[in-house]
């Protein structure tokens, strides 16, 4: 039967990652291992040769059904620093409006004997679908699917938090803006909960912060001041221009007035609170230039950490694949 829980699908029999599809259901141990491994890659920054031979001979395909040069570039750099060969494929959405051609695309790529697909897709659950329909020894890394998950972005944010705050227990974290359409927010919510953050606040108007998130363990604030009061970490999300056309908001200026992060609103948070943003920033829409360029913003750290986290996840998933194939080989 073609039915499997994505949470089970991404682990091998030893409980190690073999795909990386969602943070939902991953244990604290695995999340911590990702962070620890990422830290060990960060120290590579001091090397004169910024490259390790770990994935030498492996082929990584960046399979982007949705354009995102930034994300694709960080995955590409991460793969290259692991010495993998990288192919970038940007597939126009029109060509794959039906599953038929998505499956055809996959079969073509498998014939090229790829070892890993990094998938960005506009449909929630697409990487899960690909993991189910791919040959079993290809590792699938989710680089963002629909509104569902963006697990590497969430983990780089966790690494950024841990490097600044030391640990997760007792932290208060606010995520502000368009939660409804945000795969980053959903993945962060899973990661923060698993890592021990109890006070997670989702801040925005009702049109962008559905009540249902309360059932997922978040506190919902429609008022920015209540949302930012005494927090250690502020995550600002990018506001897409389409939201105004969808009648979810009246205007950018009204959003900025109510939910924009300024020097003043940031003063409601703890004095040592850090400000994160997955980028690219809309200055004057969700965040003021002063805050974005200020010393509380750790947005550039996020970019650096992103490469290390992606290296960690890629090497772990490849390792899980290798060990599973080894186990199968031993049985045969």
């Amino acid at each position: 039967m073609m039915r499997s829980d994505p949470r089970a699908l991404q682990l091998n029999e030893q409980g190690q990652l073999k795909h990386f599809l969602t943070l939902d259901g991953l244990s604290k141990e695995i999340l911590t291992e990702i962070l620890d491994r990422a830290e060990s890659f960060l120290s590579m920054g001091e090397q004169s040769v910024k490259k390790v031979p770990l994935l030498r001979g492996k082929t990584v395909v960046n399979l982007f059904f949705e354009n995102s040069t930034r994300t694709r570039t960080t995955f590409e750099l991460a793969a290259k620093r692991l010495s993998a060969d990288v192919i970038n494929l940007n597939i126009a959405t029109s060509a794959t409006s039906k599953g038929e051609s998505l499956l055809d695309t996959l079969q073509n790529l498998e014939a090229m004997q790829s070892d890993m697909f990094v998938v960005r897709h506009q449909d929630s659950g697409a990487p899960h679908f690909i993991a189910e329909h791919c040959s079993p020894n290809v590792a699938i890394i989710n680089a963002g699917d629909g509104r569902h998950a963006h697990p590497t972005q969430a983990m780089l944010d966790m690494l950024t938090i841990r490097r600044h705050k030391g640990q997760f227990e007792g932290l208060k974290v606010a995520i502000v803006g368009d939660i409804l359409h945000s795969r980053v927010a959903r993945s962060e919510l899973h990661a923060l909960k698993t890592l021990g953050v109890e006070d997670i606040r989702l801040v925005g108007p009702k049109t962008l912060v559905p009540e249902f998130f309360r059932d997922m363990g978040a506190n919902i604030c429609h008022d920015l001041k209540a949302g930012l009061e005494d927090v250690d970490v502020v995550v600002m999300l990018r506001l897409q221009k389409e939201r105004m056309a969808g009648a979810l908001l009246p205007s950018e200026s009204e959003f900025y007035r109510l939910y924009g992060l300024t020097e003043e609103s940031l003063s409601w948070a703890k004095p040592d609170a850090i400000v994160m943003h997955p980028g690219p920033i809309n200055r004057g829409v969700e965040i003021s230039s002063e805050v974005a360029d200020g010393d509380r913003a750790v947005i550039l750290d996020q970019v650096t950490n992103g490469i290390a986290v992606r290296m960690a996840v890629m090497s772990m998933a490849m390792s899980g694949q290798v060990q599973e194939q080894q186990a199968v080989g031993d049985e045969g």
Partner: protein
Amino acid sequence: MKLRISNGRVIDPSQNLDAVIDLFIEDHRIVAMGEAPAGFDDAEVLDVSGKWILPGLVDTAVALREPGYSQKGTIASEGRAAVSGGVTTLVCPPNTKPIVDTPAVAALIQDKADEAGMANVFPIGALTQGLQGEQLSNMVALTDAGCVALSNHGHDLASNRVLSRALEYAATHDLLVVFHPNDSSLSEGGCAHEGMMSTMHGLAGIPETAETIALMRDLLLVEKTGVRAHFARLSCAKSVEMIADAKASGLDVTCDVALHNLLLTDEVLKEFDGQFHVLPPLRSENDRLTLIEGLKTGVINAICSDHQPHEKMAKVAPFAATDPGMANVEVLLPLALRLMDEGDLELDQLLTALTVGPAACFGLEAGSLAVGSFADFVVFDSTDKWIWDQSTRKSKGSNSGFNGEQMAGRVLQTYISGQRVYSLN
């Protein structure tokens, strides 16, 4: 030809009957029960000891896909699937290609069904031409050609004014209109029940209000125009309340629910499996329980399979990109019986909603084993446990959320008008 069905447990809610009793069939009809009438000494005897004899099931929603979508199903393939599931009478929707908006298409479907010799097929005609929602169809001509009702099959009408006029016109001729309550401006782009599960999994939601706002409007227009109305595929708890209120205020309406909405909830979304992509969507546990309650109280008149076969590729895609619908007609009975096992429904309530209930909604002479009725019946082995998989599947479509599951109970034989149209072995 004379036939004696001997020693079966005959369960017929239309007569409040549940007894081991013999049935006597002559010239397509049931002519007696219990004691043999004169002239039956030399009749053929079918001994069905230990088996159930049920009225042939009546399914208000089986898409045959013909004409136009033979890659999904044909009248012959889906008719065979229906009778293998014990369905002897079915109502099929107008969304074929061409659409059932001319008498010729309605006649074609019925001719092909007669030729196939499977279930009795009753098409629903389009309420507006091409289901476009602008010009009224030739409703009376369609009815004369065998359409049992008219429906716009969930497609919007150009305006409430057009809808109101269509209903007035149908009411003029005492025609039955089938509604699929859905406010498309609220459901547009959605593929799952708007709730915690769709929110968490990032699937665009269809709010309850998409159904209830449309239902409220439709009920008001039914009241105003006096048209006979049937509401198809209710999915929300609130809708059950609204229908109950309408019925209590004396409105002549009936309604049905798809079996999968009684068995499943949006909990299944966690698997991202497109087999569970159906419209209206699988909703919350509260909605599911309220729908079951509606069956118990009689607010909901019928359970249908909402059979929608698809070609394989229609479901091989990420959830939102799959075509909605399941093809379950051939396991309608064993799946429906699960509602009993869970202690939810009594057998007679369940069978009412599968036989005489739906027959009454569409005014069909079916779903009963009373003396004088057509001899449409099912021989059912309630003890057989079997796996429903590709090797046992009859429908051309293999799309279902129940693939590979064990089924309890199995149709052994199906008779229509005294003729055997299906036998397991």
